């Protein structure tokens, strides 16, 4: 039972509080098999193949950050959720809730962000809606999207993950969260701390051609790489073993996390994909990823074994169990 009748911020931060809210408030009432699978998109068989369908909400603060804005984020998040199921994005809808008094000039920059990202993923924004609420009733602008995609080959699912699979991440982690902290804490940086926000369909398409046997994919967002490792391990009922020293992270982001007391494993990404595939196809996948502009730092970070949970071999030769935090990391002194 939810212990407090009020929605709290933590219930929206992508940690276990959020999954508890989803389970107890939505899943129990909707009783929908597609929703209960808790994957990134719902799959529905149609004549001549399978369609993937997904939806997402965007309330990011700050609205603008180096490397993108809430508009670009909305398209990339939806494209990446479809790509994670090996579905080529074909249609996206976007609904806007805008606060009275929001500057038109900023709205234009947001829409431009969306208009750039969509064609790059070859998807059309084919439905939309806009509502305005009185001043003070919304925090500037909220965007909700939904997206439909055509599954290429077969839909990749956690259930397909096998013992001995390799785990590959397409780039360095925690970059989006770093860009947001840089704005909030007025950090100055050369080169600027840039979000990894990017539409990944083209990269995933070339990955699927180079390694058709990919078993499962998932794009880390709010909960970071650690969040989806825990999610996939649980949904595939396997144990994931990862090497801390193999997880790519830029020195800039590592130092930022150490200064503010954040664990980069659980800091948000917005343009990364995790792959689980047979180990022998991992080199081919790496080569394909590294030749894409969003996969330069792709790396094999671990493997799949029988068992449960996520275990990390630390840089220092120790072992630790990776457990999802209750909510988003907060700046700490201790």
């Amino acid at each position: 039972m939810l212990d407090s009748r009020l929605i709290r911020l933590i219930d929206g931060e992508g940690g276990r509080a959020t999954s508890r809210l989803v389970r107890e408030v939505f899943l129990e009432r909707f009783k929908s098999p597609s929703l209960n699978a808790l994957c990134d998109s719902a799959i529905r068989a149609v004549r001549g193949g399978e369609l993937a369908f997904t939806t997402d909400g965007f309330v990011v603060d700050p609205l603008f950050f180096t490397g993108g804005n809430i508009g670009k984020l909305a398209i990339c998040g939806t494209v990446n959720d479809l790509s994670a199921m090996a579905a080529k994005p074909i249609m996206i809808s976007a609904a806007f809730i805008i606060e009275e008094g929001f500057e038109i000039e900023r709205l234009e920059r947001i829409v431009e962000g969306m208009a750039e990202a969509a064609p790059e993923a070859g998807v059309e924004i084919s439905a939309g809606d806009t509502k305005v609420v009185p001043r003070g009733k919304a925090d500037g602008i909220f965007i909700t999207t939904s997206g439909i995609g055509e599954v290429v080959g077969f839909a990749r699912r956690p259930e397909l993950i096998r013992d001995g699979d390799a785990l590959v991440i397409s780039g360095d982690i925690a970059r989006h969260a770093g860009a947001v902290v840089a704005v909030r804490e007025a950090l100055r940086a050369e080169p600027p701390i840039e979000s990894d926000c990017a539409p990944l369909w083209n990269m995933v398409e070339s990955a699927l051609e180079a390694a058709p046997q990919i078993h499962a994919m998932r794009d880390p967002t709010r909960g970071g790489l650690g969040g989806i490792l825990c999610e996939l391990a649980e949904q595939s009922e396997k144990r994931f073993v990862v090497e801390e020293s193999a997880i790519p992270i830029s020195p800039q982001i590592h130092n930022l996390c150490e200064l503010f007391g954040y664990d980069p494993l659980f800091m948000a990404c917005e343009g990364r994909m995790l792959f689980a595939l047979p180990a022998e196809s991992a080199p081919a996948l790496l080569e394909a990823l590294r030749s894409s502009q969003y996969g330069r730092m792709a790396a094999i970070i671990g493997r799949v074994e029988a068992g449960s949970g996520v275990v990390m071999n630390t840089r220092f030769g120790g072992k630790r169990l990776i457990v999802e935090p209750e909510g988003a990391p907060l700046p700490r002194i201790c």
Partner: protein
Amino acid sequence: MCLAYPGKIVRIEGDTGEVDFGGFTKMVNLMLMPAAKLGDMVLVHAGFAIGATTEQDAEETRDVLRRIDSAFVPEEPR
């Protein structure tokens, strides 16, 4: 008890200083280190420089990354 991280003072303005933590800088209060000068390595806790440290300290905490850097520096894609 207290997270503190090393950085180098690259600019001083009154009792605040711009400190480089390796890839970014942040304004830090120097009231607790009146003798701090340009180029000093300082430990920063809760937005304040609390003590001097050595270049080696920064190396050691960032060295951790050198081991990682080598792990993921990609060869030129063929």
